[in-house]
């Protein structure tokens, strides 16, 4: 219990004007160095959960419950204190590499910013630390990339830059919100591999958020399945993949299995496995 890095208890998030809470009494624990996957469809509340942990929800969101970081309550923490935590102890990689970098700033400076914000390196060393980190995430010519503006880079390169930004301070926890969804499959595999390597080096825990079961199972030890704001099932990777308890999970796994689809046949969808009308969680 005291080993927990992040402890989410009974977390609910409501947005004004919505009848249903975006996140409904979620509880989740992440231990030191542990890799946890949060899987669910669009709108299931997985990104809201991530933003709640980062303290980056919109001002009008109503949050109840508790999010503790190494024992300290994060909900209601003062923003200045939170800022010191973000990027240093908890960092995040976003879904859209095309828009997550400031278009007016050279990428090298943006990576160096993260270092500077947390007093990471003296001015002279910052540049070499940035180039080192860029090389670590598989960027072949870090010099050129560091001196480029984001629009001059490809999606894969930008996502690597974002991963470099997230890992440069060796955080205790890395949150990845669909980090490869915007990339094509070959680039995706390479980025996941680099992410694995980066995490191994930094010894960071991981909260990996995705709708893609194949990607999640490749990255994590433990999986939580979220549906309509609630965690419907959680367990180790093999438990979830081999013996799913909830019909929604079973459906997710079955739709990912394309080997049995006849050529030209209709792809299976979730509703083939679970009639949503008679759900009653």
């Amino acid at each position, binding site marked *: 219990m005291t080993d927990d890095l992040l402890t989410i208890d009974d977390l609910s998030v409501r947005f004004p004007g919505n009848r249903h809470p975006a996140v409904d009494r979620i509880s989740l624990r992440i231990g030191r160095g542990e890799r946890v996957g949060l899987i669910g469809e669009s709108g299931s509340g997985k990104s809201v959960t991530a933003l709640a942990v980062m303290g980056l929800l919109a001002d009008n969101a109503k949050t109840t419950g508790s999010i503790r970081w190494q024992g300290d309550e994060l909900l209601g923490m003062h923003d200045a204190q939170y*800022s010191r935590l973000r990027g240093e102890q908890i960092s995040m990689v976003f879904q859209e590499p095309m828009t997550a970098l400031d278009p007016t700033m050279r990428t090298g400076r943006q990576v160096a910013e993260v270092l500077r914000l947390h007093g990471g390196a003296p001015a002279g060393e910052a540049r070499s630390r940035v180039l080192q980190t860029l090389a670590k995430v598989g960027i072949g010519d870090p010099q050129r990339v560091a001196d480029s503006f984001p629009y001059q880079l490809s999606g894969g390169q930008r996502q690597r830059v974002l991963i470099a930004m997230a890992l440069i301070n060796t955080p205790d926890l890395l949150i990845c919100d669909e980090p490869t969804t915007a990339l094509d499959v070959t680039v995706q595999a390479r980025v996941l591999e680099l992410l694995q390597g980066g995490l191994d080096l930094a010894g960071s825990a991981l909260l990996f958020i995705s709708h893609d079961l194949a990607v999640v199972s490749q990255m994590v030890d433990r999986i939580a399945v979220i549906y309509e704001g609630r965690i419907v099932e959680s367990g180790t990777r093999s438990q979830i993949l081999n013996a799913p308890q909830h019909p929604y999970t079973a459906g997710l796994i079955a739709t990912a299995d394309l080997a049995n689809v006849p050529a030209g046949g209709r792809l299976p969808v979730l509703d083939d496995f679970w009639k949503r009308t008679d759900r009653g969680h």
Partner: protein
Amino acid sequence: MRRNPALLIGAAMVALVVVFALISAVWTPYNPTEVTPGRLLPPSTAHLMGTDGFGQDIASRVLVGARSCLLVGVVAVGIGALLGVPLGVTAAVNQHSWLGTVIMRATDIVYAFPALLLAIILAAARGSGSTVTAMTAIGIASIPAFARVSRGAALQVLSQDYIIAARSAGTTPGGIAWRHVLPNITPVVLVQASVSFGLAILAEAALSYLGLGTPPTTPTWGRMIYESQPYLYTNLNLALWPGLFIAIAVLGFNLLGDGLRELVDPTLQDVR
């Protein structure tokens, strides 16, 4: 820049005014404030634009007038931008708190206050009108425009992914405003500066005409029109030249603003 005639024509007109101002700094055909017996002469090779009621060379006065026109524009726009942009960005960053509301309501009050009235009050407070009171009044009056435009642009920037990404990296609200919002709203502010520049020139001409601006010893276009008033029906020449150059300067800055806007705003490019 292809198919953006507004930008080119506007830039050319503004360039003309700037060239006039630069030339006047080193050379004028005559001393622009020297009173001579040759009153109300029509345009000739000796006096390209003729002379006014005091026998002063109009061409020389037009050249020197370009300088004060630009000076007033630069200072007024400077005051407006330096105060208005930080106010607008602060209001955007604190959109949901009382601070944002107070700032925007305060600028609304200034917005409702005519520059002319402000200039009269400032002139009365200082005893007489001067270039400084005119520039200050016009500058203060242009703060709301800058505040509104930069607030709107900043709100748009603040909703972008890279702002959340920057915050997730630990950037403080102040750092967000300074390092990410300001650089990204610069194009919009430049457009506003260009439009405000035109308005400032017009306002300065109006204030000088009313005797609330630059003192008589410094030639300005607005003052020249004022002095041409007794001769309006007999010698149109006197009002024509300063009027023409006020029009060129104001139109030039407005066209430049429109052209820049088109260059900056991609949604407008599809419309044309």
